[in-house]
């Protein structure tokens, strides 16, 4: 008997250890982050975990030597927020802590590869390394709570003298707004985008005056990318011409669009790639089937590929001659590995892996699901299945993303998705209407559809997924964060026949309460934007109340789990407390977790580990309960 007890205790211990390891492995900081090449391709900079310290490493590209630049422990209040090259021999590391703010450290590497710190600049961060001009960079410094730009030459004796107020270069109509610089580091575009209003001013090289070239208050996207002074045209990312985001040419004189540089039929261009050494535009990025695709105009196109069935390679950095290239290699559904590729020799060398500790797991595989919603709109979703072809009756977890507007899910490795897949769930991530990447019409069609067509879209994807033989349509739960949390709660009300449980973290429970926030104001148009997204409380009060989960809890018939961070400034904890109050008064059972120091999302890895482990247990209990009592 004692032996049996000992075996049982040992089994329990090992089972708990295995579970704890899963959370520890999936929710932890990456090992290696974003290596960057020096302009002449001799050195690499990257961030790596060394003995539980985040460390910036300087290494030779022949891998014969490396040295630690700066280190902070995982518990340190100061963190490394960025690092990069300022020229052939200088580089910077930006650090941050909440008490003393940003600090920019500037280092020099000499010919013998020895390292000297040449400056520590408080309240400063790197705005633009200005690699076209050697030994000069653009710094942004906070003075009296306001950010200003300064041109800094690293060879001058005094760094501080270059931060005198009269030397600031950010002199334009919106000193606190966005800036674009020409190749010489001179500001020539100044813009602001607040409350749905975008205003853009440009300054010609031969002029001292700023000229307003764009002002729109209808939320038309107009993102300046580059000002071509010679042609007097601004390159902007906009949906204005085709309904899909393209890189467009905008004539300053006539203030009209005059053509497109890059456009794709039926798809948004999501990013523009510029050569950091001369600011020229060399390519663009877009999403295809949930996978990012890089399209280079130049020889870099040889080294990038993205497809669904083989290892993908993305160029993330290169030297000025394209001799050496840093790539991220990843197959879809697996974490990244960074390689240094020598184009002369064709030799590729591993720099490091982002999460090498996950190599021991057999990670899931994702596929694209296209479903037709209630009004005929096509919805693209991604289904990630456990990597075991013989598995049957897999429970399904539906994870609608937050937003709901202008955000999208991809098929690139996500710890959330793969944690649950590893736990034995199939995970469905729908790009419902309102998601970005599918054009202006699709994005705008998500407005004022909380609890309505958005959830129709999600349900169409669920219906499609559970039609598969390997998914158990009787074991479906929905979990989301922020809007996703709202969606989970309203879905519990809408479709108790479809979902067996719902989990909401930082979810909106009371739509009109969003207007009570003192940051929402008439002055900066944020109230108008909220009205555009949700509806006007003065005109649609009953509708806003009707689609607020907190006022529908009397209809609740499936188990729910609610969780919240106490310092959430986006979805105030009042949403959570209201729901708890109402559930208690109605005598409805529920599970809850409250993290007093947590924000909108996760600041602390421990929170995520605890929450996700509890969600898994809650789902298991809910499935077991539904088998005993089909309806509550």
């Amino acid at each position, binding site marked *: 008997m004692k032996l049996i007890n000992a075996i049982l205790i040992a089994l329990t211990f090992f089972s708990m250890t295995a579970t704890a390891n899963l959370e520890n492995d999936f929710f932890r900081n990456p090992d290696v982050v974003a290596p960057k090449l020096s302009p002449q391709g001799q050195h690499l900079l990257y961030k790596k975990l060394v003995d539980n310290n985040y460390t910036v490493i300087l290494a030779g590209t022949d891998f014969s030597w490396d040295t630690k630049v700066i280190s902070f422990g995982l518990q340190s209040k100061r963190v490394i927020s960025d690092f990069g090259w300022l020229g052939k021999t200088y580089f910077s590391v930006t650090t941050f802590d*909440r*008490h003393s703010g940003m600090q920019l450290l500037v280092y020099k590497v000499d010919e013998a590869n020895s390292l000297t710190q040449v400056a520590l600049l408080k309240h400063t961060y790197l705005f633009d390394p200005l690699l076209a001009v050697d030994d000069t960079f653009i710094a942004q410094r906070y003075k009296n709570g306001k950010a200003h730009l300064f041109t800094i030459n690293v060879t001058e004796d005094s760094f501080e003298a270059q931060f005198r107020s009269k030397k600031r270069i950010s002199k334009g109509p919106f000193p606190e707004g966005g800036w674009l610089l020409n190749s010489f580091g001179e500001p020539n575009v100044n813009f602001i985008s607040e409350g749905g209003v975008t205003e853009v001013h440009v300054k010609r090289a031969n002029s001292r005056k700023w000229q307003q070239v764009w002002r729109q208050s209808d939320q038309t996207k107009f993102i300046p990318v580059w000002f071509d002074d010679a042609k007097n045209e601004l390159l902007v990312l906009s949906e204005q011409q085709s309904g899909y985001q393209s890189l467009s040419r905008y004539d300053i004189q006539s203030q009209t669009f005059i053509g497109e540089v890059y456009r794709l039929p039926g798809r948004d261009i999501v990013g523009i790639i510029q050569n950091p050494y001369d600011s020229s535009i060399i390519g663009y990025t877009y999403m295809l089937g949930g996978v990012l695709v890089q399209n280079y105009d130049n020889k870099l196109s040889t080294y990038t590929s993205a497809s669904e069935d083989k290892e993908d390679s993305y160029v993330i950095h290169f030297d000025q001659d394209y001799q050496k290239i840093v790539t991220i290699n990843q197959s879809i559904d697996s974490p990244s590995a960074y390689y240094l590729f020598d184009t002369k020799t064709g030799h590729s060398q591993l720099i490091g892996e982002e999460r090498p500790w996950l190599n021991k797991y057999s990670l899931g595989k994702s596929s694209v699901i296209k479903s037709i919603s209630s009004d005929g709109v096509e919805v693209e979703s991604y289904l990630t299945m456990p990597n075991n072809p013989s598995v049957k009756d897999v429970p399904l977890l539906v994870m609608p993303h937050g937003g709901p507007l202008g955000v999208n899910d991809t098929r690139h490795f996500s710890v959330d998705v793969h944690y649950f897949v590893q736990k034995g769930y199939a995970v469905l991530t729908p790009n419902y209407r309102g998601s970005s990447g599918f054009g202006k019409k699709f994005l705008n069609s998500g407005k004022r559809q909380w609890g309505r067509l958005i959830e129709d879209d999600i349900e169409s994807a669920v219906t499609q997924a559970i039609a598969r033989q390997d998914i158990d349509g009787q074991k479906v739960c929905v979990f989301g964060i922020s809007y996703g949390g709202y969606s989970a709660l309203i879905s519990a009300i809408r479709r108790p026949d479809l979902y067996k449980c719902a989990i909401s973290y930082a979810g909106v429970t*009371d739509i*009109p*309460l969003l*207007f*009570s*926030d*003192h940051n*929402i104001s008439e002055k900066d148009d944020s109230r108008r934007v909220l009205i555009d997204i949700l509806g006007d*409380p003065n005109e649609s*009060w009953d509708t806003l*109340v009707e689609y*607020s989960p*907190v*006022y529908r809890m*009397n209809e609740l018939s499936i188990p729910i789990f609610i969780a919240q961070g*106490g*310092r959430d*400034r986006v979805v*105030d*904890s*009042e949403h959570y*407390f*209201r729901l*708890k*109050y*109402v559930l208690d*008064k*109605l005598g409805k059972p529920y599970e809850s977790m409250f993290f007093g120091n947590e924000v909108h999302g996760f600041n602390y890895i421990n929170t995520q580990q605890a929450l996700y482990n509890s969600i898994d247990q809650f789902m298991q209990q809910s499935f077991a309960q539904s088998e005993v009592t089909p309806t509550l």
Partner: protein
Amino acid sequence: MNQYRQWVLGAFGMALCGVSTLGYCLPKLNDDEGYILVAMKIEQGYVPSHITIEGKGWLSDLKLEQVKPNYNYWLEVVDAGSYTWDRVYLGKRTYIDVAEQGYVINVEAGKINYAGHLSMYTEMNGSLDTLIGGARFYFNNKASQALEYMEASYPEVLTQYNLNYTGKEKDHFFEYAKSIEGNQL
């Protein structure tokens, strides 16, 4: 006999007032008076010595003391009108002026008026004697917590007077809570 009964009830009330926090000391409202429910949350850091709220009428300013970490509530009888968060005192003479922020509590006669919680967030240095990076304030509608406070601390007041949200925008919560509770809020 009646006089004797009234005296006994009065004495009983005074005794309750001395030992209870359940609101037995709060006077009834006159026609032009309402309750103001002031709520403050010290999220982190410095705990103020007292706060002041400015009323529009003569002698209508409020000085609210005994601030403690986490949640603080004060329920006062005041003249109907507009009251504005004015100063948060860190000491006798040191204060943070919040008057410009427009955190207003409108008081309607015959009701318990609530407009939001003022949350204060500060960070201190290692010796806990210096404020770092100033103070951050958030004035947000936390009506469910105000209601729970009233239910726990002033149930009698709550049975006699309606809780009334007078903060930014409309709010449905008190009305809904009343409908599911069946109580007069």
